[in-house]
């Protein structure tokens, strides 16, 4: 009898749990509704259109003209130009993401101290995020200028070899990376600083009392406790790096010899200069899946290591 009773109870439990789950689902969706609606209209719908276009050849006005199946993809995957773009993109990501984060972290750690005038430095360090891609690219264009650029002038001043920054394929990608890192620093810095300040002070108090040194605390407390923020900023920087466009357009236009022809720039070219929307769409789709894959991996590996309160 008692057994029957418990069984019945458990069934009731399950029903109640389901009900609660259903309600939670409903409420959850309610909170997500504005986002879902807007994303649906402004992202998913265009994206579906992109998928659709990617199996067509389009006319110059961007309308589908001839169905070609996966031909666009096949072409891209065998096109040395696209593969080169892909390689350049990966290289660019490797150059910019870790360095942006490390520099920003360094600055954030530096300004996390309580010192006089630190507010000013904090503003200065985050200031690069206040400058548009277009403006900063133009500024750097001047700095990189082979004849009058300040960088070369400074290098000459210290009797160092100068570079044809943007004219040499090898240095061009580095130049673009420097620009990008500079632009990234402001925001990454701000976010990391916020993360640092959210770490409860008593953990450091304890560690100080224990007599542990700076580096030990950095690696045993700061980094682990900062992991959600680090995880966030690295994901975002990564995604942004994959989508870099503005600085390329102004600094190099993808050159020299396609050295900085990153995928998104190549997409832009195909869609808005060459009027081949089908091919551009196929590139978008490829980039999209590639990034989904990378981010998914990052989440699988990252979220586990990330510590939340």
């Amino acid at each position, binding site marked *: 009898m008692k057994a029957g009773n418990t069984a019945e109870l458990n069934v009731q439990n399950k029903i109640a749990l389901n009900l609660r789950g259903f309600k939670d689902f409903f409420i959850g969706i309610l909170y997500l509704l504005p986002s879902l609606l807007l994303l649906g209209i402004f992202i998913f719908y265009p994206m579906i259109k992109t998928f659709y276009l990617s199996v067509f050849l389009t006319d110059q006005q961007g309308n589908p003209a001839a169905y070609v199946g996966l031909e666009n993809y096949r072409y891209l995957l065998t096109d040395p130009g696209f593969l080169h773009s892909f390689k350049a993109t990966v290289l660019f990501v490797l150059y910019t993401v870790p360095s942006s984060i490390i520099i920003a972290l360094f600055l954030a750690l530096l300004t996390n101290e309580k010192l006089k005038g630190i507010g000013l430095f904090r503003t200065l360090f985050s200031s690069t995020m206040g400058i548009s891609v277009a403006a900063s690219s133009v500024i750097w264009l001047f700095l990189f200028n082979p004849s009058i650029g300040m960088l070369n002038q400074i290098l000459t001043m210290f009797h160092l070899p100068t570079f044809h920054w943007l004219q040499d394929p090898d240095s061009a990608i580095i130049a673009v990376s420097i620009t990008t890192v500079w632009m990234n620093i402001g925001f990454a810095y701000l976010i990391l600083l916020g993360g640092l300040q959210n770490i409860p002070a008593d953990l450091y108090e*304890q560690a*100080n*009392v*224990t*007599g*542990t040194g700076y580096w*030990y605390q950095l690696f045993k407390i700061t980094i682990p*406790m900062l*992991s959600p923020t680090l995880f966030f900023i690295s994901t975002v920087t990564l995604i942004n790096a994959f989508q870099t466009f503005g600085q390329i357009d102004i600094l190099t236009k993808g050159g020299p010899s396609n050295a900085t022809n990153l995928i998104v720039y190549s997409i832009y070219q195909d869609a808005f200069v060459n009027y081949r929307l089908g091919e551009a769409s196929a590139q978008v789709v490829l980039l999209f899946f590639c990034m989904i894959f990378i981010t998914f991996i990052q989440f699988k590996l990252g979220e586990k290591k990330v510590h939340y309160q």
Partner: protein
Amino acid sequence: MKKVELQNIVKRYDNQHLAVSDINLTIEPGEFFVLVGPSGCGKSTMLRMIAGLETITEGELRIGEKTATHLPPSKRDLSMVFQNYALYPHLTVEQNIAFGLHTKGLNKIERKNRCEEVAEMLGLASYLKRKPKQLSGGQRQRVALARAIASQSPICLMDEPLSNLDAKLRAHMRSEIKHLQQKLGMTLIYVTHDQVEAMTMADRMMILKDGKIQQVGKPLDIYNRPANRFVAEFIGTPPMNILPAVYDKGSNQLLIDEQRALTSFSHDFKADMDVFIGIRPEHITFASEDDTPNTLRGIVYHSEILGNETITDVELGPVKCLVRQSGQQLFSPGQEVAVSFPEEYIQFFDSNGDSLQAKRNEGNKVRVG
């Protein structure tokens, strides 16, 4: 073994809230020093200043023979149990305990051993792999304690380290801590609000109120010869009874009200002086006849049994006093009783609350037999 010296220490928060004022104190090497006082009196603040976690607004702190007023915490070579534990949420219990042990020059195996040993001692052995949030409150507190113990620093600060433990475990911990402190010769500064802890563990203790020292001394001395009313009432549960009285020079009596007066005492008062009579509940006895000296009549207001003892609240005219007896002997409210105040246990305080016989009372009975 290091000495800790505080000279004219003052602490002000945000330049306004005065938390600790003008503390002068020397804690001897290897001493078990207990800090007690009401909530918010500045105990944690003092501890945190010694640890170097709060700046010292004024005064000088010396640790060992060195001035340490501005020494960073990591250079003070001490360990601490925080009132709110301060466990690392991202580390397991084991890692929490072993945190920073490498600074003591221990290798991996030694660290592991030390950690296991301490965990064993504090009953945490089966939780070593858990994260703090998977622990109960008491378990967390023990982890914090374990961490401090494991470091075996010459000075250890503990801020209410046993507050979340049950009586039994607490008794066990008390003896373990005391034992360890003696074995390692640690200088231990210990904040507690538990009187049993203070009385049984302290070599010396200090009573703090509103950031000011009230009394420093051996626990028994303080219990027996409180320096003022505050200490008298603060130490001992239930607290000492304090009855206002006026000295009548003519009859050489201390009048509580018209019908009640103490007649037998050995202290000289000034005429018409306002006096407070202090007597601990356990020193009052129920008298069968009221012809013995210092016996007062009263009416039982309330009586309750706490397991092994009975607390009775007796109304003596305008004032009330608590009587504590061992055993379970309930009185019914309204019952008339006579209580007697043995002369040797009576304390007197002046109208400022200061003890009138702080010096005089040496001869208090501490029988060894």
